[in-house]
């Protein structure tokens, strides 16, 4: 049970941000900063998170924050870590926080390079499953059959499995997280902060605009993603895999049909999804 009495009071991120009401990314940022603390330097490439973080002479961050170019946040973070290292500055979290484009697509080269070098940084992918900052186009993290702003017919190929790819780099720590499970998320950040090598955390953070849900449903829909089994919460700590939450296995339809972007899902496609989830968890065999 989370000890709310001892939750850090200070808001290192979020107050006054210019994002939409009910923004999942902002929730993820707030929860992460509660775990990471003040000795953190964060670099964020072009994304909603970078945009809502500040403009002109004001920012919503109380720690050093740098709005990086789109494709190179992990490379910049590597440089920051090298500079801190040579100045003998320790006990600082260096975080590169990117969306799905900045981590899995345009930013992938930089991410895989930094992971291969086992840089002492934490990379966070906050996942709203589309390119929201430019209006909500399809990206590699968009799930199968989801409609987006540039594809009403829906994506015809699967979501790229970033967690598996990052696990293949044999880095110190890989974890999936969900804003609807704050205690789990914060524990994972604490664990990542303690690692000496590269850590990767992938947070499911729904965007109500892109997903076609009401703002107040953000947390509820995120919860359904894990409860139906589609968004497994697990971690791979020095190669050892552990599931950190046992889902209750509500029907996948409860999660998918609650969102506007899946409104054109046919019964057959829905059945495909349920079958895939069942096969993954070894259910109904």
């Amino acid at each position, binding site marked *: 049970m989370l000890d709310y009495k001892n939750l850090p009071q200070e808001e290192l991120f979020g107050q006054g941000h210019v994002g939409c009401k009910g923004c999942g990314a902002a929730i993820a940022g707030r929860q992460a900063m509660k775990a990471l603390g003040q000795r953190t330097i964060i670099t964020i490439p072009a994304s909603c998170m970078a945009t809502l973080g500040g403009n002109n002479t004001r920012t919503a961050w109380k720690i050093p924050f*740098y709005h990086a170019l789109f494709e190179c946040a992990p490379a910049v973070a590597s440089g920051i870590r*090298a*500079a801190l290292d040579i100045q003998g500055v320790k006990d600082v979290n260096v975080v590169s926080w990117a969306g799905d484009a900045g981590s899995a697509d345009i930013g992938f080269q930089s991410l895989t390079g930094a992971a291969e*070098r086992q840089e002492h940084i934490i990379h966070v992918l906050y996942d709203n499953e589309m390119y929201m900052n430019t209006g909500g186009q399809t990206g590699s993290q968009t799930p199968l059959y989801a409609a987006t702003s540039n594809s009403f017919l829906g994506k015809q190929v699967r979501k790229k499995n970033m967690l598996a790819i990052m696990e293949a780099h044999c880095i110190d720590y890989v974890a999936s997280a969900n804003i609807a499970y704050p205690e789990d998320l914060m524990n994972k950040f604490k664990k990542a902060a303690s690692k000496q090598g590269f850590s990767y955390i992938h947070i499911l953070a729904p965007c109500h605009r892109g997903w076609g849900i009401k703002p107040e449903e953000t947390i509820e829909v995120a919860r359904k993603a894990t409860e139906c089994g589609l968004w497994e919460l697990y971690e791979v700590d020095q190669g050892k895999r552990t599931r950190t939450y046992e889902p209750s296995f509500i029907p996948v339809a409860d999660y998918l049909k609650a969102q506007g972007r899946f409104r054109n899902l046919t019964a057959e496609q829905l059945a495909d999804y349920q079958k895939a989830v069942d096969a993954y968890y070894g259910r109904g065999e």
Partner: protein
Amino acid sequence: MSKVLITGNEAAALGAKLARIEVLAYYPITPAFPAMERLSKYIEDGELNCRFIRVESDHSALAAVLGGTLAGARCYTLTNSQGLLLMTEVVYHVAGLRQPIVMGVVNRALSAPHSRFPEHGDVVSQAGSGWIQLFCENNQDILDNTIQAFRIAEQLRTPVMVNYEGYLQSHTLEEVSVPEQEKVDAFLPLKRQPALDLTNPKGVNTVTGPEFYPTYKYKQNEAMLEALKLVPEVAEAYNKQFGANSCGLLEAYKMEDAEHALVAMGSIVGTARRYVDEFRKQGKKIGLLKLKVWRPFPVEALRKHLQNVRFITVLDKNIVYGVGGALAADLKAAFYGTNDMVINGVILGLGGGKCGLEQLDQAVKLTESDETEKNRSAWIAL
């Protein structure tokens, strides 16, 4: 000062080592990679206390170096041609962020067609980037300019490119006088100005609207123009500290009574010097202006030396398509409204093409003939 026989790449690496760089990132590219390898060897031998980031692309190389500078370290990198163009986005970004990065550019022709030979096409593409552009005549210049670049960059908070040509300079052995480490330490005191500072947090590079953006750009340009004053001061201080012979914005060679002037930058200056000596033997009053600083463009200094000259031949080892040579275009713009001397731009040496005494002779004769095209650069030695 001790004398050594080294290549241009080694001179650049030596300059960075003497400057005690702290964070290095590079992505191997021909013909810059020997300098990169030399630096890595200094680090692994324990001669240079520097953190090296083995990035996976040229774009990430400058991004990593930028990260290092933002966190307060002195940083350096090298690249050229294709790599320089890939990292162009970061190049402009660094200048806008006012970060004092020094970059060695081993000038090489651009693809397509694919070429690995020396030429200024790659640096010309960065003309508007906001980086101070220094050019080197020989390996001594490379070492001197690299060391001076750190002082210029850190004082003006404007990044500096030190340009030298592939193979002609990077791989050619020349005698170089090397300053002592202690004297370089005194010449380049390290004053940290991190933008990402835990004791003074800021949000760097926020989304900026039209109310503020023009101001940032104006101030960035003002800082660049300050270099016109600062570069000669730094060169003078350098010469005093090390007994060297480094030039300021430019160097005038046999220009006192010249009627015809050659204007050039880079390795071709060496050839031009010989040509001037030869041609003078024949009684012609010809001189040479060696440009060390191309950006900011030293208009006043050029006007001062060229005001009494009748013919100017501008040597361009580059082409700006549809316009002509970049240096010629800059020079003609600088002399707008002044008296009617003949300014003839010639393009030569592209992709490692011929640019020897014969070609210079052709160029000079063309300038003095009636066939000079007023508005375009002439192509020599195709």
